[in-house]
């Protein structure tokens, strides 16, 4: 690896530490669960490598353990994965000029990677492209390695790490607070939280995401004028 890449990797790694903890733990748990259903490390790693979507992978365990119904499995994963559309819309600009890496960066845009790349400015002396690439690659590796360890050794090792998965909740809360500190971000942040809570109460925990996404888009669209004005004003002040 050449010097500039090493430097980018060094600058990137600290940002991924919470994901390292969370993904090794949840990936491990996934590997163990798959193994307990008769799908060894080979199968779970294949899934983690190519599907790379935690919630959808957990949901697909049902599809892997009942009568073969591919259409059902596909529709269910589309529903569980629907929120990724928001992440990609958010990254349209940042990922526009990413050259050969673009495909992989988009493929790897899971919840955790999105939360980091959308909220973190690459350090000045690191090429943005390399920064985004290493965040994506490291997170992907943690997930696959966690899965492999779970599939291989899960039934041998027993650890009391109950609650470690909270680190991912903490990651999102931390980013939320960081964004909240800038006044002009509060409008959309508030809309995201309130619409989600309302839909959670109306539709229940297993089917609130898509209604919440629709409501968020609707309200953001209705408030286009005031929200744009606040953003614009914030930009002027920055200048």
């Amino acid at each position, binding site marked *: 690896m050449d010097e500039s890449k090493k430097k980018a990797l060094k600058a990137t790694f600290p940002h991924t530490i919470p994901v390292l*903890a969370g993904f090794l733990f949840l990936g491990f748990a996934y590997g163990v669960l798959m193994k307990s*259903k008769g799908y060894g490390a080979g199968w779970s790693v294949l899934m983690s490598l190519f599907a790379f979507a935690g919630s959808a992978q957990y949901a697909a365990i049902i599809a892997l*353990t009942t009568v073969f119904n591919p259409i059902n499995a596909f529709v269910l994963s589309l529903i569980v994965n629907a929120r990724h559309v928001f992440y990609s819309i958010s*990254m*349209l*600009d940042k990922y526009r000029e990413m050259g050969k890496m673009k495909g992989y960066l988009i493929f790897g845009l899971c919840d955790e990677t999105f939360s980091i790349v*959308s909220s973190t400015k690459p350090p000045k002396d690191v090429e943005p492209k390399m920064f985004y690439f290493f965040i994506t690659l490291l997170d992907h590796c943690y997930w696959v390695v966690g899965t492999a360890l779970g599939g291989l050794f899960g039934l041998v090792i027993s650890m009391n790490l109950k609650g470690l998965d*909270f680190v991912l909740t903490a990651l999102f809360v931390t980013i*939320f607070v960081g964004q909240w500190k800038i006044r002009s971000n509060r409008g959309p942040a508030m809309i995201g939280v309130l619409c989600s809570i309302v839909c959670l109460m109306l539709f229940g925990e297993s089917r609130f995401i898509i209604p919440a996404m629709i409501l*968020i888009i609707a309200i953001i669209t209705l408030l286009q004028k005031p929200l744009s004005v606040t953003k614009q004003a914030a930009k002027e002040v920055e200048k």
Partner: protein
Amino acid sequence: MTLNATQALAIIGLVALSTVLTRFLPFALFSGKRKAGKYVHYLGKMLPYASIGLLVVYCLRGVEFGNAANIVPEMIAVLSVVILHYWKENALLSMGVGTAVYMVLINVVF
């Protein structure tokens, strides 16, 4: 294994396809010649913040309001992350302490 190898491969392939479709769709629609218009650009400016809000609620979706052993650790841990991060602005510290608080609460206290 409930399914045979071909069926299992098909399921894995379809889950992977759903990931690819949802992540690539906006890029497929708004790149190259068809550039995103003003409205999509505006959505791209607002959705990062709304999405993090959605994710926070998504993580806490299983909280049961009537069940103290379930809601109290979660709320104390989230609050400690919020307060610590507002005060110190050190992401790793906020997450580390918050997670430790949560693990102690659910394993030792409740």
